[in-house]
């Protein structure tokens, strides 16, 4: 079955899987940071990703700011919006059961998506690729932009991982997660650090949205379709495990691509089948150490 044609198909789908995986990795990374460090299940992550794409679109159409500017501005705008959300709806719920912050972000999604649909309609809007053209790899045509997405998101994932695992700031964050009162006694404003952590995770979602704008259509529902896949990725990778989220994101993207080659009917199901198997075999997540359960 591995004649020339199917080899082309295989490599092509692998590459598409890698591109999808880049988005999965980046978004689940943000979700894992938010969950792992401040224990909020950010159901609005998909909506914030969508906002990132819209901010990029509006910057281009109304202010003439091109993609490369949006890449910096949109995450800041969306991150600021996240900070506002944190201050208004998440802060009052901080000391309650985590279920309430999950439900509050869920309610926020209904409002955000509803307002966006009201303003922009539900059809997808195009965003011109900032890197037109591509290169023929022999087995497929690779648009430059997609190559850029793979490289850039990998760089963002690695940088974020290093920031949290290897820097002093990251150490403070992880310590505040374990023993907030002790970190506070060092003179660090833990509540503010937590708010900024949320904003940072949301900013990552916004950045993902900017990256996605030229590939997918910009539409109010672009995030909610992705959201559940991202949730599954975070569950498979081990809740709150940052490295787990990144690796599982790429893994799931590639597996999804492979199922499209070998058994296309099941490509939507593959993620959830993997999740169920992973839960049965490794209940704490594929990439978590045994003691980090719960």
């Amino acid at each position, binding site marked *: 079955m591995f004649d020339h044609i199917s080899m082309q198909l295989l490599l092509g789908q692998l590459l598409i899987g890698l591109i999808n995986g880049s988005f999965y990795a980046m978004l689940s990374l943000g979700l894992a940071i938010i*969950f792992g460090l401040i224990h909020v299940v950010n159901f609005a992550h998909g909506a914030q990703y969508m906002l990132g794409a819209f901010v990029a679109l509006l910057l281009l159409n109304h202010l003439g700011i091109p993609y490369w500017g949006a890449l910096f501005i949109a995450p800041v705008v969306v991150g600021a919006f996240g900070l506002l959300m944190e201050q208004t709806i998440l802060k009052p719920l901080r000391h309650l059961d985590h279920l309430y912050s999950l*439900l509050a972000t869920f*309610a926020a999604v*209904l409002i955000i998506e509803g307002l966006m649909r009201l303003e922009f309609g539900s059809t997808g809007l195009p965003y011109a690729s900032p890197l037109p053209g591509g290169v023929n790899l022999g087995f497929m045509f690779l648009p430059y932009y997609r190559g850029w997405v793979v490289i850039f998101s990998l760089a963002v994932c690695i940088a974020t991982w290093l920031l949290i695992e290897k820097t002093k700031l990251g150490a403070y964050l992880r310590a505040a997660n374990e023993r907030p009162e002790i970190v506070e006694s060092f003179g660090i404003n833990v509540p503010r650090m937590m708010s900024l952590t949320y904003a940072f995770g949301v900013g990552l979602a916004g950045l993902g949205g900017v990256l996605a704008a030229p590939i997918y259509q910009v539409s109010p529902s672009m995030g909610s379709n992705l959201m559940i896949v991202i949730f*599954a990725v975070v569950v498979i990778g081990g809740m709150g495990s940052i490295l787990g989220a990144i690796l599982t994101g790429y893994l799931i993207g590639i597996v999804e691509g492979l199922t499209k080659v070998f058994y296309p009917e099941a490509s939507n199901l593959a993620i*959830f*089948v993997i999740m169920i198997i992973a839960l049965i075999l490794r209940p704490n997540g594929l990439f978590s150490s045994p003691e980090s359960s719960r």
Partner: protein
Amino acid sequence: MTRYLLLAALAVVALAAPFFVYPILLMTILCFMVFASSFNLLLGYAGLLCFGHAMFFGTGAYIGGWLMKEGGLTIELAFAATTLAMAALGWVVGLISARRGGIQFAMITLAISQFVYFLLLRAPFTHGEDGLQRIPRSALFGMIDVSSNLSLYYLILAISVAAIWFFYRIVHSPFGEVLRAIRDNEGRVESLGFVPERFKIVALTLSAGLAGLAGAMKASVYQIATLHDLSFHVSGTIIFMALLGGLGTMAGPMVGAALIVMLNDHLAQFGEWALIIQGTVFLVVILFFRRGLVGELQAFIRRRSAKA
């Protein structure tokens, strides 16, 4: 005493209602009351947030509808078979998810419901995006005609009352006590020699059966089963209903269900605004009235009687 008077008054209202209000709306309310109660059993009493509860409701609608349309079953047999089938699904979901508590349980059930969604999207008998249409209202016991809205209403009313009574019995049984204890302090329950996981699986099984019954009833009311019934939008709506009315109170989620069904009926003409308003009310309830309408009312009465 006042309690019996209240129940008698409710019975009179329920029996007379279809002569004053459109029966389809009333039946929708009843279906969602059963559905919301099944959800309440999990979140309100066992502390388990099932974020994909629509999978039981929606799959129940398909199975009940299919059994009546293609299987030629009478309506009561179709309902009973659906309840059992969904209880079985709930048991399987419990086996996969009950080991994990809290947030993880919510995310896993959401993902499993999405799995079921895509499975049914692909299954030939659901007719994909078209849905299962023209579901007949098969005669009760094969003899009593329930094809008119009015006669079906009384059947749905009777089944709903039975289902809610069943829910009441579960909550007020020793089993229900253990569930509440697990919600409040799982470690303590475990140290008493109970196995919380097992209780959670049974709770999920019972709850899924009830939700499936609600779905089958809805299929007989609207005579159609669609993928929308198992979308996560419906899962969200049911959470909203339960929270608005008051989690962990018997009546709360039912009141919430009735209110939201009526609200949606009114807001249907406003399109996008319906969701925005729903989200806003939801957010206000979460931030300021976490006890819900019935919970706040109970707290108010308790404060009054404490003062007197």
